[in-house]
């Protein structure tokens, strides 16, 4: 398959999958079969792009013009490919997990769920491969809309309210800031094409660059930079596979991915490094990291704690990109992948706990590791990755970020990373401790074992992936080193 | 001199319009409207002279005709509440 064909297939495949899922809606086994088959073949198709891109190729394809001068076009570059690999790879795990979760909890509207999920993946791949800002924006908004039915899946009043916050924040930021930022970029640069080294060099003044950066950073609401982070905890009402999708596979990853992409390909790292007008960004990111960690520390609801952990971890990526050093940018890209694998494991575990034990609060988890050893072991691996300890992917990415900060002598950033590492350990380790070292409460008369097999398989797989990414870090590194021309 | 005539007519028009506004009954207004029709007819004729355009005389006749029909229509509407009402009319018979 030629690279161009692979791109087209990768974009169309999830949509075709969605169609098949819709047609097979009455036959659950066939429906889930289609989901899995689509996910697996999608990953395979995306993987075919790896060798070429790793060797420095940038396959692309253009269609009609979205606006005069701005084509509906796609280019596969390292960061996008990495993101696409993560999304399509985790989709397999997520599909497997969903089957167990959705059936185990007797959820309604499962067909709609799988259709929207496939749609979300399609949008994510569009974001990943977009050749220019407008194409990216198109898929970015599509992702918001197609995940809305997932967030509001249960249809309850709570879900409806969560949906309002979700849409409200994401659409407000993207329309109010992101869109305007794109327009300004278009006017200044005459193009929206993602170009190595950026497109804005020398075209805007110092202050304007700072303002534009702010529009982008706050406009990309999916990156959950404070104060536009509320949608993420609100969306916790959704079923766990959806949370996994939001936190790991697609949505927030699309956010930070866009952040990195904008900084690298629109502004150009070297062009804005050292500009006074962009100094504020590490500060805001650092503040988000610390503040979200503190909230997480105080949350008893497991999913809420995980949500604030995500807010905090996302700002790692933003912070890393904002440090504007080659090492930290590599770290940012790697952290997208690392956090994805780690966080999906954590969510899978949380969902497994809910499905098997119907528990949602941290304080209820005493001794649960004995009843669900696989699950909680995987959970522990995820926690290690979040903190940034070996042998997990989180260690690799954090290492790069810290090195970047250290080498460029940005001591505030170093301090933020160190403090937040302690905080992360502070809000995650107690859970592991409870699960394995506290006795099962006497009052707990609800005997249970592990969650359904497909769920356990899925979460063990993602935990394994988290570890594998430590040992085979060269694979993603081969891609992301190209970001900084190394 | 036609200007003088036109001015006289316009003055009268103003007085009649005052009555139309003052009312108080709908019949007062209909009366005023009817008189306005007469005045308009005359005014059109005078303007025809003023501008040397005899077509205005035809216009004046038209206005006069429509004025009659209009007044009767208004009366019928307020008397019977319906323009098409045959009343207890003895319909003209075909010879």
């Amino acid at each position: 398959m030629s690279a161009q064909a692979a791109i087209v297939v990768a974009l169309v495949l999830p949509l075709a999958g969605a169609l098949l899922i819709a047609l097979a809606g009455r036959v659950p086994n066939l429906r889930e079969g289609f989901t899995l088959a689509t996910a697996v073949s999608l990953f395979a198709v995306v993987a075919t792009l790896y060798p070429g891109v790793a060797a420095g190729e940038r396959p692309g394809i253009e269609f009609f013009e979205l606006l005069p001068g701005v084509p509906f076009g796609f280019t596969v570059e390292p960061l996008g490919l990495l993101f696409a690999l993560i999304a399509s790879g985790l989709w397999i795990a997520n599909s497997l997990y969903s089957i167990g979760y959705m059936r185990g909890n007797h959820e309604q509207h499962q067909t709609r769920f799988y259709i929207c999920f496939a749609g979300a993946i399609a949008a994510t791949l569009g974001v990943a491969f977009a050749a220019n800002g407008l194409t990216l924006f198109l898929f970015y908004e599509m992702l918001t809309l197609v995940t809305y039915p997932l967030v509001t899946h249960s249809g309850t009043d709570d879900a409806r309210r969560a949906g309002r916050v979700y849409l409200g924040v994401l659409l407000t930021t993207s329309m109010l800031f992101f869109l305007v930022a794109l327009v300004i970029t278009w006017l200044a640069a005459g193009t929206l094409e993602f170009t190595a080294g950026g497109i804005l060099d020398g075209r805007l003044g110092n202050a304007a660059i700072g303002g534009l950066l702010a529009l982008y950073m706050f406009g990309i609401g999916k990156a959950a930079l404070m104060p536009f982070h509320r949608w993420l905890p609100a969306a916790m009402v959704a079923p766990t596979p959806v949370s996994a999708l939001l936190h790991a596979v697609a949505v927030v990853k699309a956010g930070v991915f866009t952040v990195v992409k904008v900084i690298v390909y629109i502004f150009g790292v070297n062009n804005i490094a050292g500009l006074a007008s962009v100094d504020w960004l590490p500060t805001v990111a650092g503040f988000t990291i610390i503040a979200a960690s503190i909230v997480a520390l105080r949350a008893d609801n497991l999913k809420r704690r995980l949500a604030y952990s995500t807010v905090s971890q996302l700002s790692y990526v933003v912070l890393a990109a904002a440090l504007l050093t080659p090492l930290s940018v590599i770290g940012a890209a790697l952290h997208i992948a690392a956090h994805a694998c780690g966080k999906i494991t954590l969510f899978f575990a949380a969902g497994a706990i809910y499905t098997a034990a119907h528990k949602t609060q941290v304080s209820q988890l005493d001794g649960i590791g004995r009843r669900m050893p696989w699950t909680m072991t995987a959970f522990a691996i995820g926690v290690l990755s979040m903190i940034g300890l070996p042998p997990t992917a989180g260690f690799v990415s954090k290492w790069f970020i810290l090195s970047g900060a250290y080498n460029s002598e940005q001591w505030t950033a170093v301090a933020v990373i160190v403090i937040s590492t302690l905080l992360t350990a502070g809000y995650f380790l107690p859970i592991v401790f409870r699960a394995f070292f506290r006795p099962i409460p006497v009052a707990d008369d609800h005997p249970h074992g592990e969650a359904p097999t497909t769920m356990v398989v899925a979460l063990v797989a993602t935990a394994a992936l988290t570890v594998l990414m430590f040992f085979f870090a060269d694979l993603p590194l081969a891609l992301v080193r190209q970001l900084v021309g190394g | 001199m036609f200007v003088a005539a036109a001015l006289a007519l316009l003055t009268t028009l103003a007085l009649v319009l005052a009555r139309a506004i003052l009312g108080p009954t709908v019949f007062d207004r209909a009366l005023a409207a009817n008189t306005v029709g007469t005045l308009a007819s005359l005014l059109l004729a005078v303007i025809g002279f003023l501008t040397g355009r005899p077509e205005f005389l035809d216009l004046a006749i038209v206005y006069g005709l429509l004025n009659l029909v209009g007044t009767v229509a208004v009366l019928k509407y307020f008397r019977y509440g319906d323009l098409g009402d045959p009343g207890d009319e003895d319909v003209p018979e075909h010879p």
Partner: protein
Amino acid sequence: MTLFGHFSYWITMFLLTAGLYIVIARGHLVKKLIGLSIFQTSVYLLYIAPSKLIGGTAPIVSDKFTLYSNPLPHVLILTAIVVGIATLALGLALVVRIREAYGSAEEDEILARDEDAARENPRS
């Protein structure tokens, strides 16, 4: 001439405002229509004026066109009158049907009846 011109200008303005006032101030739908007609009447006077100011006839192109001169003010007035009559007639037809449907031709009463209907019978 100018005197007449000014006079007709003032009458135009008077009819314009008087008509508009009636349309706004009166609640009876028929009266509003009458106000509207007065309002429209103001236009006719306005169109009489240009013929005098510009000299009576429209420009003539060539011998070919001497027989008939094109848009003359009275044609325009007539057109405006026809439009006015059609509007008035349609308006009256509407009022008649509104009266049938609501049992009143007073704006306030009609609006009140719509509100009542909405309150009493949420289905309609």
